C-alpha cells in the first residue's frame, strides 16, 4: 500500500516497545490514574478521533480497528503504524491519560522516546488537553486487539531516532492552539480543527528533502512524496484556495465529497471518507470559514503557455477532438459539467494549477469521489489509460487546461507517459 496522506519523513513509534517499557517504568502510575470514563466523554472522543482521522493510519488492511499495521511507504523506507487499542501487551492499555496527552502534544512516548514525524504531532500539539483526554477515553473503550507492532523498515541513517532531534529543532513548535482574539469564535474553531486534529498541513504544505515543512509556507501546497498527487495550495486561488467559493460549496465538498464547484479525489477522498463526513454542520462550517479566509484576497491566475504556438495548435485540435468524443458527454462541450456528479471543468481551479499532475492522473486512472452518507453512490470518472495514447492524454489535458477561459499551461506527452507508471494507490 502506498502512503496515504503524509509527506516525507514518515516515521512511526514502536509502541509495543514503548508500551512495554512504560509498563516497567511507571506501573503504579498507570494503574492509579485510570478512572472509568463516562459515555458522553467516549462519544466525544470518537467524534474527535474522526476529526483527527486516526483510523486511516492506525488500522491495517482487513485489520481490527486501531490495531495498527498499516504500511506507510516513505522516501526513507517503510514504517508500520502502531496498535492504539487498549490491549495491555501490544496496545496502549497500560497508558494513562497524562501519557497519551504528552505523546500527542510533544511527540515523545512515555519512555521519552522520540516519535518519527509520520505521526502528525506537529499538528496534534495544538489539541487541547480536554480533547486529548476524550480521544484517549474513546481509544480505551474499543475492543483490545492482541496484535504486535511490526518493526519499521527504514534505511540507514533514517533508522537512527536521534536524528529526529535535529528535525524537531528545525520544524517542530510545541504548544496548544492559541485563539486569535481579532477573529470570530467560528473562525477560531475552524483554525483549531484545520491546524490541529485535521493535520491538513501534512499534505497541503510543501515538504522539503528533510521531510520538514516550514510554518511560513503553511498550506501553500506541494507534491506528496511517492504518491504522485499534488496537494494544492489552500492559500492561493490559483490552486485550491477557496477564497471565491461560497461557504455552502466548501461545506458540501468537505462533508459529501462533491460540490457545485468540484469533487474531491485521490488522497483527499480518503480524508472525506474516513474523517470529514463524520463532522457536524457547525464544525464543517467553521472549517469552511477558516479555509475561505486563508485564500481571500489572493489574485486570480494569469495565462501561461509553455508550448510553441504551431505545435500548440496541433495539440489543441487533437485535444478538442478527444474531448468532444470522450469527455463532452459528461462534462459538456462548454466544460460546464453537470454538478455535482459531473464536475465543471471550466473555471475549475484543480485543472489549472501550475502542477498538471492531478489533471493528467485523473484522465489516466479516473476515480470515484468517496462514498459518504450524503453521497452514498458516487458517479466515477472512467480511467482512460487503456484507451488514450500519451499524445492524446497530453492533448486533452492541454485542451481542458486552456479552454473556456481556463488559464493552465499545456502539458507534454512525456509528462503523461511519466505518470502512467505512478502507483495508483
Amino acid at each position: 500500500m502506498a502512503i496515504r496522506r503524509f509527506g516525507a519523513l514518515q516515521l512511526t513509534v514502536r509502541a509495543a516497545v514503548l508500551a512495554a517499557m512504560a509498563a516497567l517504568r511507571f506501573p503504579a502510575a498507570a494503574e492509579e490514574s485510570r478512572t472509568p470514563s463516562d459515555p458522553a466523554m467516549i462519544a466525544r472522543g470518537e467524534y474527535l478521533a474522526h476529526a483527527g482521522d486516526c483510523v486511516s493510519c492506525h488500522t491495517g488492511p482487513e485489520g481490527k480497528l486501531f490495531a495498527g499495521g498499516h504500511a506507510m511507504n516513505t522516501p526513507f523506507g517503510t514504517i508500520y503504524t502502531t496498535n492504539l487499542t487498549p490491549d495491555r501487551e501490544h496496545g496502549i492499555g497500560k497508558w494513562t491519560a497524562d501519557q497519551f496527552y504528552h505523546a500527542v502534544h510533544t511527540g515523545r512516548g512515555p519512555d521519552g522516546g522520540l516519535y518519527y514525524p509520520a505521526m502528525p504531532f506537529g499538528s496534534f500539539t495544538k489539541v487541547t488537553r480536554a480533547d486529548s483526554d476524550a480521544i484517549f477515553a474513546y481509544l480505551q473503550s474499543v475492543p483490545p486487539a492482541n496484535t504486535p507492532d511490526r518493526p519499521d523498515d527504514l534505511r540507514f541513517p533514517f533508522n537512527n531516532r536521534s536524528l529526529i532531534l535535529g528535525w524537531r529543532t528545525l520544524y517542530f513548535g510545541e504548544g496548544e492552539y492559541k485563539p486569535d482574539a481579532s477573529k470570530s469564535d467560528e473562525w477560531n474553531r475552524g483554525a483549531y480543527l484545520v491546524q490541529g486534529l485535521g493535520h491538513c498541513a501534512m499534505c497541503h504544505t510543501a515538504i522539503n528533502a528533510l521531510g520538514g515543512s516550514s510554518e511560513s509556507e503553511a498550506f501553500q501546497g506541494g507534491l506528496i512524496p511517492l504518491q504522485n498527487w499534488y496537494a494544492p495550495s489552500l492559500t492561493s486561488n490559483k490552486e485550491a484556495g477557496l477564497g471565491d467559493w461560497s461557504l455552502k460549496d466548501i461545506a458540501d465538498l468537505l462533508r459529501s465529497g462533491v460540490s457545485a464547484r468540484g469533487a474531491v479525489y485521490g488522497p483527499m477522498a480518503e480524508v472525506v471518507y474516513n474523517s470529514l463526513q463524520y463532522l457536524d454542520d457547525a464544525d464543517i462550517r467553521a472549517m469552511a470559514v477558516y479555509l475561505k479566509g486563508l485564500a481571500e484576497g489572493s489574485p486570480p491566475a494569469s495565462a501561461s503557455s509553455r508550448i510553441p504556438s504551431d505545435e500548440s495548435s496541433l495539440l489543441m485540435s487533437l485535444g478538442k477532438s478527444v474531448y468532444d468524443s470522450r469527455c463532452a458527454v459528461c462534462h459538456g462541450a462548454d466544460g460546464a459539467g453537470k454538478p455535482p456528479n459531473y464536475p465543471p471543468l471550466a473555471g475549475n481551479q484543480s485543472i489549472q494549477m501550475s502542477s498538471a499532475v492531478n489533471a493528467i492522473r485523473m484522465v489516466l486512472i479516473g476515480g470515484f469521489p468517496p462514498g459518504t452518507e450524503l453521497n452514498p453512490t458516487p458517479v466515477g470518472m472512467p480511467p482512460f489509460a487503456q484507451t488514450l495514447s500519451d499524445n492524446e492524454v497530453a492533448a486533452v489535458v492541454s485542451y481542458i487546461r486552456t479552454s473556456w477561459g481556463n488559464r493552465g499551461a499545456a502539458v507534454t506527452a512525456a509528462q503523461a507517459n511519466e505518470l502512467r507508471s505512478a502507483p495508483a494507490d
Partner: protein
Amino acid sequence: MAWLGPVRATEAPAQFEPHVQACAPCHGAQGQGTGDVYFPRLAGKPAGYLFNQLTAFKSGRRKYPPMNYLLEYQNEAFLEQIAAYFAAQKPPLPEPAVADVSEAVLARGKSLVTQGDFDKGIPACSSCHGPLFTGMEPAIPGLIGLKASYLSAQLGAWRYGIRTAAAPDCMQLVAARLTEDDVKAVAAWLSSQPAPSDPSPVAKGSYPLPFACGSEPN
C-alpha cells in the same frame, strides 16, 4: 468478506448506469468484457461472487492497484449495488476462442476440467463451477466467456498465493496442486468452449460441494 445475503436491486439498471461508467473502459458498459485479454467479463456472474471481489479489491486482499484505487473509499452497500447491476446483465457470450495449443494439451485440459486428477487430489472444475461451468449462486463464478490469458493469470495468482479468498480458501488449495502446464491446459480448454444455451449460474445448493469453501456459505 464472505457474501452474507441476497442483493437488493434498489435501482433499475438504466438509472444505475452512470454509477458504473467508470467500469466500462475495461469491462464494457454491460460488463461483457473488452478486447483486453486480462480484463474479465463481469456480466451474469453471481452477485455474491462479484461482491466478494469488489470488497477484496476495496480491502487490498485482491491486489490490482487500478481497482484498489477505484474502490478503496466506497461503502459496501454501494458495492452490493454494483455487483447486482453486473449480475443482472445478459449480453451475449463471446465466440469461443480457437485454442493455440496442441491436441494433447487440450485433452489434458479437458480431462482436468471435467474429471480432475484423483492422484494429485485435484477435483474437476465442474464439481464446484457446475456441469456447464456456469457457476452457482450466490458466489461461485462461471468460467465460460473468459479469455485464456485471464484464466491462466488468475490460476497462477491462486497457485502462488497472490490471490486469496476467505478461509477455507478452496480455490487456493486446488490451484496449489496444479503445475504451470496444467494451468495452461485448463485455460486453453475452458476458453475454447462454446456458450451453453442458458449461461445463468445455477441456484444455490443445486449440488453438494466436494469440500468446504469460505466464499460459498452452505
